[in-house]
């Protein structure tokens, strides 16, 4: 039985649209295996525990499943986006133990026991993270698809401190592609937070 549906029932007591879609996706995923490949033998499944946005999660997973697919398909955290799925666009950026990484190139089994923060866990209750607020204030997005990855990357960048100049901000944001071309406003948002 999958945890996502159980969690939805525990929280809401009813069927939500997101929960229904997530549950369906999990069922389809379980039958077809990750990325449409054949299912792994059951004895190869691995037990994985993750602390996601401060909450402990225990899962039994095909070892081929990436952290990205685990977040989206198993835990219903669809804020993290799947862009290229091969480490070239940055849309899937999350924090593992506080460091920004690409969830599409991370096997979930390899980060068992670690702390994962996604875009859903960045705000402090009802108050946006300063980087989220700056993206709103500076109009740092257009279509929005790359935005969760941009914001997760920028939040880490501010902590890392590589914000000495616009050139440095651009260099240290180069792992996040924006096809709408919102770059000038993204740089402005990072600069606004860095002060």
């Amino acid at each position, binding site marked *: 039985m999958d945890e996502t549906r159980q969690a939805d029932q525990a929280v809401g007591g009813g069927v939500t649209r997101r929960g229904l879609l997530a549950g369906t996706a999990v069922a389809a995923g379980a039958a077809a295996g990750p990325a449409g490949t054949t299912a*792994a033998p059951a004895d*190869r499944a*691995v037990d994985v525990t993750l602390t996601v946005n401060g909450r402990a999660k225990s899962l039994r997973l095909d070892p081929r499943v*990436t952290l990205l697919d685990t977040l989206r398909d198993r835990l219903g955290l669809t804020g993290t986006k799947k862009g290229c799925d*091969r480490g070239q666009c940055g849309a899937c950026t999350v924090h593992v133990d506080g*460091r920004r990484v*690409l969830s599409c190139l991370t096997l979930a089994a*390899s980060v068992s026991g670690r702390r994962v923060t996604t875009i859903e866990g960045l705000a402090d209750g009802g108050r946006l993270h300063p980087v989220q607020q700056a993206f709103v204030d500076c109009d740092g997005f257009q279509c929005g698809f790359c935005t969760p990855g941009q914001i997760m990357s920028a939040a880490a960048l501010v902590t890392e401190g590589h914000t000495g100049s616009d050139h440095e901000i651009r*260099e240290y944001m180069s792992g996040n592609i924006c096809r709408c071309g919102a770059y000038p406003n993204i740089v402005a948002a990072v600069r606004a937070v860095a002060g």
Partner: protein
Amino acid sequence: MRPFAFETPASLDEALRRAGDDTQFLAGGTTLVDLMKLEVMTPSRLLDIGRLPLRGIRVHGHTLHIGAGERMSDVAGHDLVVRSFPVIAEALRLSASPQVRNMATIGGNLLQRTRCGYFRDTATPCNKRDPGSGCPAIHGENRTHAILGTSDDCAATHPSDLAVALVALDASVHLASRDGTRRVRLADFYHLPGRTPHVEHDRSPGELMTAVTVPALPWARRSTYVKVRDRSSYEFALTSVALALDLHGGTIRAARVAAGGVATRPWRLSAVERALTGRPARLETYEVAAAHAAEGARPLTHNGFKPELLRRTVVRALVELGGRA
């Protein structure tokens, strides 16, 4: 992705005991997971070495020691590396993206596979991926391919920037297996493709890279890495140059020069080094020395620009580090 068994050895000994022909060690995963998704690499077992104590950046008797499990970003930002071997820090900082550098390890960086598009596409032949199947790059899309160290069977470049800096510094890698440990000069570690492009380096499947050591070179404090590419960040090199200069009173007493993006393995430019040694640090010296950079180059149909670009990259690195005077 093909099915595989995921194993988490609790110690280095256990990892080495479990390693074999059908296994791959998983470190940062930025090469391996990518190539497993493409089914270019299809191991039946993964040994996760991410938690093994292959860490540490320190100096032992003037030799720099870097654990193979250190992340690229941690080495790039380490005071000791930035101060004593800026060429290493710069080569790392100009590699990949911040996210990738937070994941990828030093060992994985040195063992990463080529970015040749034919190697990455299982629908096409490739002598490296499928020995004897042919090399479409020789007469196909080869703008980014090698001009040095190639053969009729392969012209794929070695993609690592770090390896270029380390070859210039005469670094060694340390390998461990069930049978013990050994040390190999990085310059000897990588093979030329010849007739066997699939044999890329001197490491057996049961061997794990545990560390890199860089011999003391006090004048490497004056060193740099210049990388030329199609976009200014998050891109592999068209040409690159690692350079260290021993300057004294306007004279070059010694030089280390290696090139990336142009060869099938990191390419030490010994003829350029010789032409710089004992000469005044000025533009005329640089131009004369850089003329040797692409000696023996064999351009392909679309990369005829590389010999001249390499020559200019050498000059630019020399001007940046030695001045124009």
